[in-house]
């Protein structure tokens, strides 16, 4: 059974509804044993990274996610769920899960007409081939809401980029059995649902 990780970081029910729409029956759980043993894990999230990491630790979900990650089964991170996969975030100067090398930084524009958070629909340029991306084209737009962005250390983990203001940042991360998007695929209309459907069928080993 696919599991959506519940760590009080927002929109688990929106994600569950979108899963159901693409024919993936997923359960919401905060139980580390359930997460560690799941077939697939969806790791969503909105809000503050610092308090989210604290909640993960309090519930033992950080260890559960590591155990799950090492199993090689597919893991999908969404928004804050992408940021926490990296080693560190500037938000509250917080160490994160470290499954992907790199860190998150805050948008900081000299030109105040570029507002923070980055809210709205923006394009993704896909930079590498990946089985999750076969139904999408560079230039497709997705819905973003975030003030921090990921800087993965290794270019091969960066599957897609988005430009906001004078910054081009990594909006899709892929590494072995991890796939993560900075945008909310559950709120990105039909193209977002296609990505969720691809996750339903993704076998990272193949």
């Amino acid at each position: 059974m696919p599991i959506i990780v519940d760590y009080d970081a927002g929109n688990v029910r929106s994600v569950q509804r979108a899963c159901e729409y693409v024919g993936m029956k997923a359960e919401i759980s905060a139980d580390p044993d359930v997460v560690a043993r799941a077939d697939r894990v969806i790791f969503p999230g909105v809000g503050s990274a610092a308090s989210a990491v604290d909640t993960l630790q309090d519930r033992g979900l950080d260890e559960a996610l590591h155990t799950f990650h090492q199993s090689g089964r597919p893991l999908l991170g969404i928004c804050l769920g992408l940021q926490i996969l990296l080693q560190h975030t500037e938000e509250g100067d917080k160490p994160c899960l470290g499954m992907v090398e790199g860190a998150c930084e805050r948008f900081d524009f000299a030109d105040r007409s570029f507002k923070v958070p980055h809210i709205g629909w923006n394009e993704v340029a896909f930079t590498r081939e990946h089985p999750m991306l076969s139904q999408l084209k560079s230039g497709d737009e997705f819905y973003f809401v975030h003030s921090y962005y990921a800087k993965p250390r290794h270019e091969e983990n960066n599957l897609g980029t988005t430009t906001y203001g004078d910054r081009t940042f990594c909006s899709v991360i892929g590494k072995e059995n991890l796939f993560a998007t900075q945008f909310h695929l559950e709120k990105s209309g039909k193209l977002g649902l296609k990505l969720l459907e691809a996750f339903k069928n993704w076998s990272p080993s193949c």
Partner: protein
Amino acid sequence: MLSKRIIACLDVRDGKLAKSVKFVDTKDIGDPVSKAREYYEDGLDELVFYDITASSDARNIMLDVVKQVANEVYIPFSVGGGIRTVDDANKLLWAGAEKINVNSAAVLRPELIAECAHAIGDQNTVLSMDIKQVEMSRDFPSGYEVVINGGRKPMGIDALEWALRGEELGAGELVVNSIDADGTREGYEINLTRMIAEAVSIPVIASGGAGKPEHLLEVLTEGKADAALVASMVHFGDYTVSGLKQWLHDQGVKVRLRY
């Protein structure tokens, strides 16, 4: 590059879609769930539902509408109208709304904005402001005043001051609704929208007065709005969402065309 958003506003009364002209004389124009689905299929970027139900015991009808919409529409949508407490906001979020809009209750008790921002996140807390033009004076340096109760009650608060206060309290976005322009279909209040958009560092959604595609172009360029709210012009079938977006694209405005 970030696209400008087209947001459809659906006024809902007793579970039915209504459209007001200057906030009085509302009339039913259909089922909000099927309208939401129609606009979603046609490439709408976001939805706002405004619950104008008069009696509080009919609020559960709105929660049902929200649940049905959330099962069919996978773009962001917010709900406003009658939100007085964090509990009201949470109920709507649990039913499936992405964001909540606070308005009159926040003017009467500004801490509501901070409470919602803390409980559900800044990015999910939208401050909706109803604004009327007044004589520029010491009390109203911007020349605009905040009003509540659907435009009937002036509050003696300067509109620009309130926008900045709302941002400081944690609102993640602002809806700037001109009561003078609302329902007229004669164009958005450009000066008001630009003044607020230039002063705050959160996104501004222009509202009230859209009647022609040119009005959207004007408010998204000259008015510096991040998003434009439309209602009558699409509800009555004069324009389609996809048609409006294609036209804006042809005029050089960045909008989302592939969906």
